[in-house]
């Protein structure tokens, strides 16, 4: 059956019908003639011919269907019929479409974000064979090898097939006429080929260029290329000034490039490992490839057997602390981010479920209302299959239209996500509605459509409905109860999860920092290599502090190498520090770390950190030969086991000069916004070359408005060095940024919980309304027989309460499971936190009763005279 044939027939369908009529008429007339010839009377001949011919309409139908255009025709007819139905009840169709669109829109938008994190393959060649390996030291969060060990490894790679190295991200400054703080990464020339990445433009650096003391070169990121060079191809071969040194741009990375650690990066610089390894002690982070098809557990033994030779450079005294460690790239990349992505995806899928249940409920209500119509059509000879098909066409039209509207909504939601999302969430910027995501939306709509169809089908029309008797279909109601209870249960799960996350967020932000965060503005400055002389660095910061102190409204100015509660505090293993007269700490890998900061004397005053014993640093302490230290309270207790710390001495590492403890400061949170807190000590920034730290934070406390303080700070820095980049923020902003990701997660979940709640409540409202309409006559009879309106309200409320109770029971059980899955995202909140559960259940209960009360009150106001006269 050719398409041409079909189309011709479709276009000339009316003509074909006329021709068929004529053809059949001709046949009958010939038969009549024959019958007359055989001696029948004309009337008899006609009757006989017609009898012999049989049902003309059925024959025509069969001819039409044999013309091979049956399904197309039927579908068009179904669509026309459905459109007519929608026009008759536009409010119904629009509601179903809106509910579906909401569900599919939100789900699609979140899927497009989660897709990047959860399901896309990593953008590297054969990502599953990549592992990271090296020595793990408790106080470093990454594994590394020394240059010597790395050379050793390269001499004989077995059981690995290839390896490359990089050195983590560092800050670097673009010191052209438009200064910019950038993130640089040092990588080996084999780094990009190892990951199977080709520069989008230009070329990667060669191994000849990846050596010390050769002209400096760089491969720049796609976004840096766009920002700095306006995406012009002539950027290749240009020279930029990086930390005061010329660097030649060789190539541009592809747009989707990401570091294996998901760090953002602006420039790749050559690793330049010196040939004489004794100079190169920088820790190298190693990626290696397993042989194709092999897994880490299988090569584990062979790999770890080689660990011993890689340890040769580690001093024997800390040899016990280090372990050889290897992990797959996939394991490194997963973690909280994946939990968060799964949480969001589960949340929106729940919402989609609620939305589908809601739409299904609406359709079910309508199918009950249309039972009589369907029964009549069945009685008139419509095949059952045909009726089901018609319903399916109708619901699929609704769900696909909803899906289409949902895609538009998703595009808008995605824009909103990108707008409110913190920059730290990897992949989010690349989230978009591509074919995969649209396919997902399409499948979601289809599934919704099927749910829509199956729900009413569970409740098929019975012949009894033909009698014209108003039947309250009990079967349909059962399905609907289940749907409403299910909706309530799912929205309770969402609500509880959102509550837990919001509470965690609140806990996180109100966690005691140990510092006064108000009226503080900070500037993080990193002096470029133009300040290669230590004196120049000391002068810069001393000048800046002196200038700032003179300003009106500035109370105090302090300098530090890092900012609490996170920053990049410097740390060292706990056991490395010796306290005078105390036994050395046991050298165990989990002995913990100690954090230290280099601060100016006014640091404690500026941050409002109390000095519990002794004194803060003073100006005399800044003398080059001073040797003083201040301990945090918890560290002092731990180190001296409760004995008086003042006047005692500590040594920071074996052979280091002794420092005298002059004070004990209150604990300050120093491991980010987490529960964990490490012991800490403070060193004073002395006026010596050793303490001329190029990267420092300037901390300003003043009674003036923070915005004004910030503008002064910016102006003073610019007047000292107009090309120096700096990050200026209020301290509250600094804290806020540490909580952006939890805030984003909690907010999204709260949005979904609210939407789900509204949908579930409207579902309950719809059900009770429907019930009231159906039982209007019964209510009329009850009222006429003397029932009070209150009793009628109570009747419907008791229904609502029963379904809500069912929903609550399942919801609480589900929420309990969901909360356990969320555990890693929670902070200071137990997964079984009773207030969160109670609050969520209470909110749901109140809303459900409210949703039920409105239509129930309508039931009470039914006028018995009107309803009883209706039929």
């Amino acid at each position, binding site marked *: 059956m050719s398409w041409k044939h079909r189309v011709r027939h479709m276009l000339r369908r009316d003509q074909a019908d006329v021709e068929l009529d004529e053809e059949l008429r*001709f046949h009958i007339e010939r038969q009549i003639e024959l019958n007359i010839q055989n001696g029948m009377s004309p009337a008899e001949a006609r009757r006989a011919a017609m009898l012999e011919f049989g049902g003309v309409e059925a024959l025509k139908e069969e001819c039409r269907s044999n013309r091979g255009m049956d399904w197309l025709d039927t579908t068009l007819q179904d669509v026309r019929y459905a459109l007519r139905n929608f026009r008759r009840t536009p409010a119904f169709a629009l509601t179903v479409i809106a509910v579906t669109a909401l569900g599919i829109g939100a789900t699609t938008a979140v899927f497009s974000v989660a897709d990047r994190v959860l399901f896309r393959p990593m953008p590297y060649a054969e990502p599953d064979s990549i592992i990271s390996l090296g020595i793990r030291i408790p106080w470093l969060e990454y594994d590394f090898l020394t240059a010597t060990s790395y050379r050793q490894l390269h001499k004989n790679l077995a059981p690995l097939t290839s390896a490359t190295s990089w050195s983590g991200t560092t800050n670097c400054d673009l010191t052209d006429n438009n200064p910019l703080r950038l993130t640089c990464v040092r990588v080996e020339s084999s780094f990009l080929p190892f990951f199977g990445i080709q520069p989008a433009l230009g070329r990667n650096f060669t191994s000849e260029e990846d050596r010390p003391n050769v002209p400096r070169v760089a491969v720049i990121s796609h976004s840096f290329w766009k920002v700095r060079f306006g995406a012009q191809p002539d950027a290749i071969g240009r020279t930029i000034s990086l930390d005061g040194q010329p660097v030649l741009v060789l190539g541009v990375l592809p747009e989707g490039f990401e570091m294996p650690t998901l760090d953002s990066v602006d420039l790749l610089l050559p690793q330049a490992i010196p040939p004489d390894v004794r100079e190169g002690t920088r820790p190298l982070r190693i990626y290696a490839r397993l042989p194709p098809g092999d897994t880490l557990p299988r090569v584990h033994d062979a790999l770890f057997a080689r660990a011993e030779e890689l340890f040769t450079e580690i001093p024997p005294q800390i040899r016990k602390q280090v372990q050889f460690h290897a992990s797959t790239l996939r394991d490194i990349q997963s973690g909280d981010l994946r939990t968060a992505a799964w949480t969001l995806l589960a949340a929106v899928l729940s919402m989609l479920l609620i939305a589908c249940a809601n739409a299904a409920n609406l359709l079910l209500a309508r199918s009950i209302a249309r039972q009589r119509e369907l029964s009549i059509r069945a009685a008139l000879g419509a095949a059952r299959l045909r009726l089901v098909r018609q319903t399916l066409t109708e619901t699929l039209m609704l769900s696909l239209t909803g899906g289409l509207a949902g895609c538009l909504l998703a595009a808008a939601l995605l824009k909103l996500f990108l707008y409110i999302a913190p920059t730290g969430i990897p992949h989010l910027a690349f989230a978009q509605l591509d074919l995969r995501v649209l396919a997902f939306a399409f499948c979601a709509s289809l599934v919704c459509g099927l749910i829509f169809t199956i729900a009413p089908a569970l409740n098929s029309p019975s012949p009894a409905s033909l009698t014209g008797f108003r039947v309250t279909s009990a079967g349909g109601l059962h399905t609907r109860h289940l749907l409403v209870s299910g909706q309530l249960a799912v929205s309770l799960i969402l609500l509880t999860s959102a509550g837990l996350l919001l509470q965690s967020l609140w806990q996180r932000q109100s966690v005691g920092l140990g510092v006064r965060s108000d009226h503080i503005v900070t500037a993080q400055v990193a002096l470029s290599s133009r300040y290669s002389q230590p004196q120049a660095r000391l002068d810069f910061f001393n000048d800046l502090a002196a200038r700032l102190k003179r300003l009106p409204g500035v109370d105090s100015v302090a300098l530090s190498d890092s900012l609490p509660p996170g920053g990049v505090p410097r740390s060292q293993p706990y056991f490395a520090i010796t306290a005078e007269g105390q036994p050395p700490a046991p050298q165990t890998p989990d002995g913990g770390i100690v954090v230290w900061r280099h601060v100016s004397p006014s640091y404690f005053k500026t941050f409002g950190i109390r000095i519990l014993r002794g004194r803060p640093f003073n100006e005399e302490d800044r003398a080059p030969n001073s040797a003083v230290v201040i301990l945090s309270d918890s560290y002092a207790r731990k180190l001296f086991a409760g004995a008086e710390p003042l006047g005692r001495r500590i040594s920071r590492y074996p052979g280091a000069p002794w420092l005298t403890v002059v004070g004990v400061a209150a604990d300050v949170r120093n491991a980010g916004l987490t529960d964990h807190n490490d012991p800490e000590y403070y060193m004073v920034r002395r006026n010596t070359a050793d303490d001329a730290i190029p990267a420092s934070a300037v901390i300003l406390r003043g009674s003036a408005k923070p915005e004004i303080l910030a503008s002064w700070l910016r102006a003073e820095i610019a007047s000292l060095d107009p090309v120096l980049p700096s990050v200026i923020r209020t301290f509250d902003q600094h804290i806020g940024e540490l909580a952006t990701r939890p805030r984003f997660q909690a907010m999204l979940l709260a949005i979904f919980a609210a939407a789900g709640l509204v949908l579930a409540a409207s579902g309950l409202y719809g059900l009770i309304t429907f019930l009231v309409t159906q039982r209007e006559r019964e209510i009329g009879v009850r009222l006429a027989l003397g029932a009070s309106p209150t009793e009628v309200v109570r009747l419907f409320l008791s229904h609502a309460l029963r379904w809500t109770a069912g929903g609550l029971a399942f919801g609480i059980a589900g929420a309990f499971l969901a909360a356990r899955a969320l555990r890693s995202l929670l902070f200071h909140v137990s997964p079984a936190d009773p207030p969160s559960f109670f609050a969520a259940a209470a909110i749901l209960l109140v809303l459900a009763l409210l949703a039920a009360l409105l239509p129930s009150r309508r039931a009470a106001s039914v006028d018995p005279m009107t309803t009883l006269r209706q039929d």
Partner: protein
Amino acid sequence: MSKPSDLIQGTLDLLILKTLTLGPQHGWSIAQMIKDRSEDVLQVQQGSLYPALHKLETQGFIDSEWGDSDNNRRAKYYSLTKKGRKYLAEEEANWQRLSRAVSLVVSMA
């Protein structure tokens, strides 16, 4: 008497195509011819004939054309196409094989 529904599936197509080898015919004459040739054994019902004709036409085995009948009325004449002839040859061969096989079994001693 055989009703068309008792005909082996596809046999009606074979009968129609074979009848059309004598030249273009309209539906009524096809039915008559099958009836006459089969000595009144095969009576093709209109309810089967016309759907079959329309199907064969859609499949491209026969073609149709409006023409004047013997008593000057418009009638739809069906004629074999080239594709139809080929199909007929195949079907005839099949039929011969089948009927031989059936008669072998039926005439078994």
